């Protein structure tokens, strides 16, 4: 094979180079300015204002342009960002933020409490098309006490209060006041207060951010952050290998197999950490078959989650048992589990009235064949493979599954919002706070709301309401523990897996410290030693 020969030649060269460079790579460098990070992504952002963004591609970039009052530390605790400190009143209803005085917008205007108040007013304005208004509607009163003091008072005790003051509700008032946010051209070329500034966006090609010299934690060492949009994972990977991309998220196959070469070990660093997300199979509760708990439990017994984690994620993930990520404080490992047991599944289906079987081996009840469609989004081969495994396993217990892969916005607008689906294979990114009122509460079933499966369990409603009204972490742990047990017993979703995030970064970038919140939290501290710098930004 020619490729094998080429690989050996390459291997030889790598070994030769490693032998020559080993001594040098150990030396310690002082951080220096310069160079650019080229990130390759599959998705292109849609807007760059955090409160308007609904996709992770937009949030990733917007998060570098906008800083909020608070942020997460590497141990998942809350630390100040724009806020240098805050006080919480003894009754837990009022939070007073004290803002740093050295934060500025891009044009040099100081970033003050009035900007936070303006952001708050915008996000709670019913005409603003945002998905995040709910947590700000809990606020009774918000006020800018002086230029650098911002105070909010809540109607009732609201546990996720503090965490909601990230970068969602901070906007430059002097720029936006008097304009309509959603129609403003600044939505796609914003002015921010974060470590990077918007420079250029060529749709379908790339987005360029430059370092902000006035960033309050110090100018980033990197001159630029360039995001290239390459909608195909295989092409993205080839770009990485040819050196035109420095940073991307790998698929498990790319992580375990394709980057297991000397070339990648020499030139790149790979990281793994559990992502704050899980993948699930959801049932539509408006469909009569899935209203029967035995049917949902039977399907849960027929799916081998271990097989999926092993086969689809190649072991680079964990089995999910509920809507929280293992090893975080709300996670409850002692919930009812559904072991892979086809006899049990068959017995449950028999009990639910699906005992007749037709000539194709498909179960029948009242003349209807047990046949349903799983919808999933296009462009995610992990979900596609997961769906194929589920399809194969369910066929073995007499359920015929069709898989339909639909482009993202069509899936949301035409199928999920209109509740035109039987089952969905999708994922949720979750926050650090365990409040999941929006996803599970029976009041959240209207158009565009997130309980699109129409789940309704009064006990779950009660727990969700109680969970957000106390600050006592043990009490919350107990409440959300019970909540997870009920979900596990009731199976509105089959929680499948928590995938690991698998970023890969070119080796020339220093100061990367992996943590539970990922690696990009200190992007403004990354640097490239001068002799390894590759790009120079032309003025």
């Amino acid at each position, binding site marked *: 094979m020619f490729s094998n020969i080429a690989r050996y030649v390459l291997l030889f060269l790598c070994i030769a180079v490693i032998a020559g460079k080993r001594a040098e790579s150990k030396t310690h460098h002082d951080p220096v300015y310069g160079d650019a990070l080229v990130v390759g992504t599959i998705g292109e952002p849609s807007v760059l204002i955090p409160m308007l963004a609904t996709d992770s591609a937009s949030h990733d970039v917007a998060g570098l342009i906008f800083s909020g009052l608070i942020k997460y530390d590497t141990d998942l605790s809350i630390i100040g960002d724009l806020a240098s400190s805050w006080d919480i009143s003894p009754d837990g209803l009022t939070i007073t933020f004290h803002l740093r005085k050295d934060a500025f917008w891009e044009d040099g205007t100081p970033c003050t409490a009035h900007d936070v108040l303006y952001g708050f007013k915008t996000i709670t304005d019913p005409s603003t098309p945002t998905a995040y208004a709910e947590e700000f509607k809990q606020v009774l009163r918000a006020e800018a006490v002086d230029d650098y003091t911002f105070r909010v008072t809540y109607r009732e005790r609201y546990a996720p209060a503090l965490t909601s003051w990230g970068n969602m509700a901070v906007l430059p008032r002097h720029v936006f006041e008097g304009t309509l946010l959603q129609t403003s051209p600044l939505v796609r070329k914003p002015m921010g207060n974060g470590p990077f500034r918007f420079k250029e966006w060529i749709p379908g090609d790339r987005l360029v951010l430059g370092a902000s010299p006035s960033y309050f934690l110090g100018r980033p060492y990197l001159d630029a952050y360039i995001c290239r949009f390459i909608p195909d994972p*295989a092409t993205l990977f080839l770009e990485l290998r040819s050196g035109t991309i420095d940073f991307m998220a790998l698929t498990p196959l790319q992580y375990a197999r394709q980057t297991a070469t000397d070339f990648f070990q020499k030139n790149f660093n790979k990281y793994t950490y559990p992502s704050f997300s899980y993948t699930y199979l959801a049932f539509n509760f408006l469909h009569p078959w899935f209203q029967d708990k035995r049917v949902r439990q039977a399907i849960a017994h027929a799916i081998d989650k271990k*097989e999926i984690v092993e086969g689809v994620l*190649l072991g680079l993930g964990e089995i999910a048992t509920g809507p929280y990520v293992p090893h975080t404080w709300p996670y409850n490992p002692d919930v009812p589990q559904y072991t892979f047991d086809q006899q049990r599944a068959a017995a449950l289906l028999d009990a639910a009235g699906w005992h007749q079987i037709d000539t194709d081996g498909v179960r029948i009840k009242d003349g209807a064949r047990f046949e349903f469609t799983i919808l999933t989004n296009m462009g995610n081969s992990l979900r596609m493979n997961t769906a*194929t495994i589920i399809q*194969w396993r369910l066929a073995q217990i007499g359920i015929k599954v069709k898989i339909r892969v639909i482009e993202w916005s069509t899936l949301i607008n035409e199928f999920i919002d209109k509740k035109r689906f039987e089952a969905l294979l999708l994922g949720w990114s979750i926050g650090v706070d365990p409040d999941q009122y929006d996803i599970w509460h029976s009041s959240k079933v209207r158009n565009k709301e997130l309980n699109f499966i129409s789940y309704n369990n009064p006990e779950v409603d009660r727990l969700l309401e109680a969970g957000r009204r106390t600050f006592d972490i043990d009490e919350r742990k107990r409440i959300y523990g019970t909540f997870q047990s009920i979900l596990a017993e009731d199976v509105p979703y089959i929680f499948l897996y928590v995938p690991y995030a698998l970023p890969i970064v070119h080796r020339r970038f220093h100061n990367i410290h992996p943590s539970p919140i990922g690696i990009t939290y200190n992007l403004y501290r990354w640097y490239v030693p001068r002799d390894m710098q590759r790009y120079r930004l032309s003025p």
Partner: protein
Amino acid sequence: MMERNTFYAFVKRLWRNKLAATGLCIVMLLCAIAAGAPIIAPYNCNAIDVKSILLPPSFQHICGTDELGRDVFSRMVYGSRISLAVGFVAVGISTILGTLIGAIAGYFGKWIDSFLMRCVDTMLCIPDIFLILTVIAFVGENVFNIMVVIGFTSWMGVARLVRAEFLTLKEREFVLAARAAGAGDARIIFIHILPNALGPVFVSAVLGVASAVLVESALSFLGLGVQPPDPSWGNILMQGKDNIETAWWLSVFPGCAILLTVLGYNMLGEGLQDILQPRLKNTR
């Protein structure tokens, strides 16, 4: 009309034409594989085995395994059924439709001809693959729809061929004789002219199978064709693309299968053309 001894003569000439004979052998081999799939395939083509993901070719799996540990050879064998079925049904539809439209246009002429040929021109303006993608997006992606859509978007070539044949044939004496004997339009079209116009139609149908197989593979490659778990050469290739550096067998084997099939039909088609229309030999 072709009679028995002329049929034998035809087969003899076909066999003597090396191009056509080779093509025919390949096509027959593929048909045999498709028909005998359950006997030939060593594994259930949909059986997932996460313990043997992306294994290279070996004695257990002669073409290796895919991302879900399924046997690639078995999937290719079953995939040949889909490729051939799509080829034949799509070409069946396009040939019948094209012949009908071409015959009507060529026979009646005047404004009917102008109208139908402008329809053909309009259809030809739109690049095939985009037209098919658009239609598939509306009607939903499954094997049946693909066959029908390919059929309904590839009849224009046949229509032009048949019309051209009809334009010359309708002026011939035997048509005049039939009309003098009191034959109606339908009788003249179907009984008298059409059988004489079938040679080029036959050739274009055989060539059409090759292009239908390619279109099906392309659609499946784009994820708009045959849906999982059904195997098709195109969707095996799609997996191959993502693993091209570490699992060459996912691209090479289905790629070769497509190549061989298209080659087979093209050779047969070219050979038939030599035999049936020697006068056209150097005009293509």
